[in-house]
């Protein structure tokens, strides 16, 4: 929700859905623009779609993406508090900031919260902030739907009073515990507080009393603060800027050496780094360099980075260069072998070769291919980057019967002159590359009518033809137009 909806304009018509019971989907979150159509979270997706115009976009909910986005926001909030944690629910949607004594720099609690609010607003997020004595009470007050205030400050020692009228749902309880409380007609926190404490765990489980006591401040709540990642980077600035590639390469190697040396004692390898080049006009150019496995091989990193650098077409002189490690991992510990040439070494070498190929040619030129169940020849396969970890999962289509197809498909079908005995019949002669080809055998027609949803209605009769010389071609006739095209060569 945060990653997809959080920082988007209010006019955006977007909703998120997630799988629910009985192979149905339910709406998880919608933008205010979609709410106008009467759609609410929890509604069945089919029902929501029937209420909205077709232009509303629906995307699957990504909890992992949300958590990651929340974590990034937590890192940013470290300027307001030394301890920023995600709330402990399975699907966190809040940040908990320990701001004890942090208001000194802001001359009061309200200016501090206003600064936090501005920080979020600047990034496109509207927030509800609550400041109380306990994290549980702050969470409850920030989530209560009746609130019209975007900043709530409860004076010290008054949080119990603030909590009393709130529904029990805001104690961060599991849905089962809340349902059980409702069965006993316990709906508000003050009703819950009136019950004998000793009986609560046996009737409602340990969770209830723990959450209640955390909100009331009777027991401490441990917040696990997010650790702000410390970038490992190395930079170099030229004054004046340079355009000598050799100089750039030398410095690049030097920077890489610095990074490798700093990580070597910890046995942490670099898996991905960003190279940022600042040009003379202050324009920035950057490229990622990634490995499939973490490595501290200076030679390999230098080689890959230089291969990437060679592909850049720089029209200006370079003023500065920065290398930043964006992904690192412990180095793989492997048993030393006496001889090379075994499968494991081969696989490692193959990965190195792939990384080198990507460095020189780019990811778009190093591909894995898979077949797709699409009758239109142009769409019968797809390719993925070899670094795409989901590609193996996509390669799920198994084809038990493969029709005969050429191994070369022309990028665009080329029109050819064809002679048939009867209109609509198979070809008996055609001209290609200024040569006349007499057809000895032909197989067809294989009618392919498809693709209307792509905006291009394909209606073709394909023929596989063998010439009197034993050469094979793949021709088609467009239905309706009666024109002939060469589409593939069994070269």
């Amino acid at each position, binding site marked *: 929700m945060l990653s997809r909806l959080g920082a988007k304009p209010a006019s955006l018509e977007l909703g998120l859905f997630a799988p629910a019971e009985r192979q149905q989907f339910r709406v998880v979150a919608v933008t205010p623009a979609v709410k106008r159509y009467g759609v609410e979270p929890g509604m069945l997706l089919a029902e929501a779609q029937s209420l909205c115009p077709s232009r509303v976009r629906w995307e699957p909910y990504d909890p992992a993406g949300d958590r990651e986005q929340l974590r990034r926001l937590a890192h940013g909030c470290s300027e307001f508090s030394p301890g920023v944690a995600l709330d402990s629910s399975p699907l966190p949607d809040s940040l908990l900031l320990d701001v004890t004594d942090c208001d000194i720099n802001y001359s009061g609690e309200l200016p501090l919260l206003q600064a936090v609010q501005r920080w979020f607003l600047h990034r496109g997020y509207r927030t509800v902030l609550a400041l109380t004595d306990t994290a549980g009470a702050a969470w409850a007050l920030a989530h209560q739907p009746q609130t019209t205030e975007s900043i709530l400050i409860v004076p010290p020692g008054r949080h119990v009073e603030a909590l009393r009228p709130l529904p029990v749902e805001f104690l961060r309880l599991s849905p089962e515990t809340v349902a059980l409380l409702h069965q006993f007609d316990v709906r508000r926190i003050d009703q819950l507080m009136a019950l004998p404490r000793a009986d609560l765990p046996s009737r409602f489980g340990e969770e209830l009393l723990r959450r209640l006591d955390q909100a009331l401040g009777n027991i401490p709540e441990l917040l696990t603060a997010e650790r702000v990642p410390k970038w490992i980077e190395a930079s170099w600035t030229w004054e004046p800027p340079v355009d000598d590639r050799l100089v750039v390469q030398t410095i690049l190697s030097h920077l890489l050496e610095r990074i490798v040396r700093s990580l070597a004692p910890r046995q942490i390898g670099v898996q991905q780094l960003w190279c940022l080049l600042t040009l003379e006009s202050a324009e920035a150019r950057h490229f990622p360099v990634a490995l499939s496995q973490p490595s501290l091989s200076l030679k390999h990193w230098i080689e890959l980075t230089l291969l990437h650098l060679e592909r850049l077409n720089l029209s200006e002189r370079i003023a500065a260069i920065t290398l930043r490690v964006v992904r690192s991992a412990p180095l793989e510990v492997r048993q030393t072998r*006496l*001889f*090379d*040439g075994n*499968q494991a070494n*081969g*696989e490692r*070498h*193959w990965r190195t*070769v*792939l990384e*080198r*190929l990507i460095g*020189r*040619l780019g990811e*778009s*030129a*190093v*591909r*894995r*291919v*898979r*077949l797709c169940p699409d009758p239109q*020849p142009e769409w*019968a*396969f797809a390719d993925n980057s*070899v670094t795409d970890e989901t*590609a*193996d999962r996509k*390669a799920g*289509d198994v*084809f*038990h*019967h*493969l*029709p*005969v*197809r*050429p*191994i*070369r*498909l022309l*990028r665009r079908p080329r029109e050819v002159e064809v002679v048939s005995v009867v209109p609509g019949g198979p070809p008996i002669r055609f001209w290609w590359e200024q040569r006349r080809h007499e057809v*000895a*055998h*032909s*197989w067809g027609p294989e009618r392919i009518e498809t693709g209307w949803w792509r905006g291009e209605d394909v209606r073709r009769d394909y023929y*596989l033809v*063998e*010439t*009197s*010389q*034993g*050469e*094979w*071609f793949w021709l088609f006739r467009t239905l309706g137009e009666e024109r002939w095209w060469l589409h*593939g*060569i*069994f*070269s």
Partner: protein
Amino acid sequence: MDRVAKRDVIHQLRERTRQVESAFRAGESPVDRPAEHLDLSELLTGRRLPRGWLIEWQGSGEESGAETLALAAAAAAIPQGGRLVIVDPTGEFYPPGAASLGVPMDERVVVLRPGDSQATWWVWEQVLRCELPIVVWGHVPPGNERQWVRLRWAAQRGGGWGFLLPTFPPAVSTKADVRLLVRPLPSRRSPPCWERRWQVEVLSARGSIHGKAADVVLSHETNPLRLVAELAHSTAGVVSPRGKTG
């Protein structure tokens, strides 16, 4: 233990381990076998090729089918744990056509699309130098003798196999271990049987197959590559059926 004694012990251990490993490797295919023992049917069906060989498939014309025949042989030559690399500078390689020849459409196959001839040479060299057993199939642009020597050296170092499709009749010797000329032949069976025939002549080769010729048939229905008649010898064999793979 002094340094010399330690080195001797390590040397002895190395030798003993090498012997043990050799015993295990004896059953593996492919093997480092002498070129003299290679049979033409083995060559054309990609079986038990000597490591580090470059095989040039020269077609009598663009539509001769040399590429198809070479790809069918390359698919059959992929060893266990190996890879097939398709070098496709034109971007016209069509995977469904390859799949119908038995090329597996999974992580074993990688397609490379270098942008120019210089990059294409670089790609060939890099891939052939890989220590993993790799079959490389694709076009090779015109090159000079130095480039061909480097390519051959890369193949010998890595131990993979290159199925070369020269774009033009090469001006210099390609340094390939085997040079084949592929001519299409009219098929003998009428539709609906999908069967393709070629005559393959060995223009030059290391070993005993030099000068030989054979008729080869590829059945698109059952997908075997068959040597139906070896023109210089009477031996013939049905080899290398590969199941269709998706």
